[in-house]
């Protein structure tokens, strides 16, 4: 598609911009007077409370447990929210997390049709933002490709305390831009009908978060 007319379009648009800006565009200094970090260090108890509060506000489920209790907590939440059917896990999800659960481990070849039939998916996350109630996935092996956390109707996400930062800038600085990133703040929702919020449209209709401390 980089044929001659395309090159002409490129050169013309760039020339129009240069002409619009004039011969010596004024340099503009960027002011960054905003907070680049919060007052609490990552994983502080206040941040875990705040994250939980925000998530519940978005109608996500939040459960807390210790690292030792994690397998039992995963099984508990799945029994409650996805009592029937197999549960999908990404290739690198630690096996003990889903001990005793009937899982389908994605090897990258699971078809979209199959993803549409599983009961739910369990993933880890890359970072979480307390102030905004946000969890970010970066497609690492314990989170998997993006379709895994999208097509199934239930997403159970495990968040470690040390992954919870207070502010958006702290999360941005922890992430690698060129990985596929998905920022998740509650289950999918729409406000398109008279601005009434309805949770659960095309993405997973249920979001469950397991906050792991200690």
């Amino acid at each position, binding site marked *: *598609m980089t044929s001659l007319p*395309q090159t002409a*379009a490129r050169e*013309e*648009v*760039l020339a*129009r*911009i*240069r*002409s*619009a*800006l004039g011969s010596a*565009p004024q*340099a*503009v*200094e*960027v*002011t*960054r*007077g*905003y907070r680049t970090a919060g007052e609490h260090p990552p994983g502080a108890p206040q941040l875990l409370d705040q994250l939980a509060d*925000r998530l519940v506000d*978005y109608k996500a489920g939040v459960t807390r447990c210790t690292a030792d209790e994690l397998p039992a907590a995963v099984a508990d939440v799945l029994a409650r929210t996805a009592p029937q059917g197999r549960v999908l896990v990404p290739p690198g999800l630690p096996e003990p997390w889903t001990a005793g659960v009937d899982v389908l481990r994605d090897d*990258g070849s699971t078809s*979209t*049709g199959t993803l*549409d039939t599983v009961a739910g998916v369990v993933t880890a996350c890359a970072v979480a*933002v307390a102030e*905004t109630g*946000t969890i970010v996935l970066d*497609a690492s092996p314990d989170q998997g*490709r*993006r*379709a895994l956390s*999208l*097509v199934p109707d239930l997403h159970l996400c495990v968040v470690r305390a040390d992954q919870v930062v207070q502010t*958006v*800038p702290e999360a*941005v*600085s922890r992430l690698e*831009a*060129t*990985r*596929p*990133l*998905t*920022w998740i*703040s509650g289950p*999918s*929702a*729409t*406000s*398109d*009908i*008279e*601005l009434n919020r309805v949770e659960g*449209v*095309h*993405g*997973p209709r249920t979001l469950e978060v397991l906050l792991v401390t200690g």
Partner: protein
Amino acid sequence: MTTFLGLPSVGQAPARSSPGVGHLQGSESFPTAARRALGDTQLRSNIGRATTTIRGKRARVVGEVPDWEELREAGRTLKAATMSRLPELLAQLEEQVTAQGGTVHWARDAAEANAIVTALVQATGASEVVKVKSMATQEIGLNEALEAAGIDAWETDLAELIVQLGHDLPSHILVPAIHRNRSEIREIFRREMPGLGTELPPDLTDEPRELAMTARRHLRRTFLRAQVAISGANFAVAETGTLSVVESEGNGRMCLTLPKTLITVMGIEKLVPTWQDLEVFLQLLPRSSTGERMNPYTSMWTGVTPGDGPQEFHLVLLDNGRTAVLADEVGREALHCIRCSACLNVCPVYERTGGHAYGSVYPGPIGAVLSPQLTGMTGDAVNDSLPYASSLCGACYDVCPVKIDIPSILVELRAQHVETAARASRLPTPEAAAMKAAAVAMTSPVRWRLAQRASRLGRLLARGSRTGTAGERRIRSLPPPLSAWTGTRDLPEPPAETFRERWAREGRA
């Protein structure tokens, strides 16, 4: 022989920007369209309720951010810095996207963008595409262009779906079906969905949850089979080549993840210089837009990731009048807009007329400054009326997350319009005639006295159309041509005695 004029040129053609084309201008002027909208009580009550709700939500979540003003200032300076370095940043974006396996295309106008996208879709062999809500593709009329080429374009955002099924036009940047209430939406679904293969229960209610679930069912099959998706972009990072779409329903994720081919159409102004800059806009946009601390889903992708998401990615960079806006030193600030729609929700004019009266896909205060600049004002174009679609109350400036001084741009555009109109027509404009008459009257004490006495004629003209008590009487209508003024305003009744006459009388007593 040619004379060198000091202007940069490419080949034979000078680098003059052409006006934007597409859905940027309606068929009638704002006052005419607004008058009809004001007569639609259903529309007024739908929009009034919706804007009131969202104003309250926005105020609550903005109020809890201690550094909101610092974030706005950062947003403003970041956008200004981006514009001043736009050529090098666009080249950098192109380089990064290409390095990560994407292909970048450039479109001078809507027609060129539509041709590029249509050819790309045809090359895949697909006869349908799924679409993520995108202002840019609405602006260029992409759906119509694809339809003309025999390609079905399915809108997947719930509000866009309602608009598409209703054979309607969007009326709000964020909530395009804000002018429809629940029972109207149910009727649209009932009428249209069965023909598209989605059976509806006979007892479908107008409960928002039930309607949303119906839309989910309707679109699910389409998402799972679609081979090509088309999106816009909220942000593009020059430094890394990362694109971003901010959404709520997950229809965006479906389109950005499942199909084999992704085509993104983006205005050249959507750029930010560095990855770090997103930390500012990801805080400003959701709170200003939906009044949420964060929107449910934000997707970010860079070129192609093997084994994850679309394996073919095309980015179409769109001018379509933007460089013409950039050439205006005052008006170029309109290009900083991140399409949050906060200015629509606080605007007393938008709240009463709704979005359709603006005639463009960009309604409200930002539309009133952006649309006429994109299309150009000719002196008698329909969009020439848009800079007057404001009371200049300034609420739009107060809520703008990147501090676009919309009132000042409106005033500047009004001045430009008066000048353009004066140049375009040999007859003096009403403004020019009135100012000239005032100058003649006010430069001579005798003429001024006579003019003031003549204003008493107003009392005569206004007989029968007065309201109020003596001393504060208002004139509600005057005969033509003065009716043009009183059509939308009352006029204080001129006093029976001028100030000079009263001074002379009481001073003597």
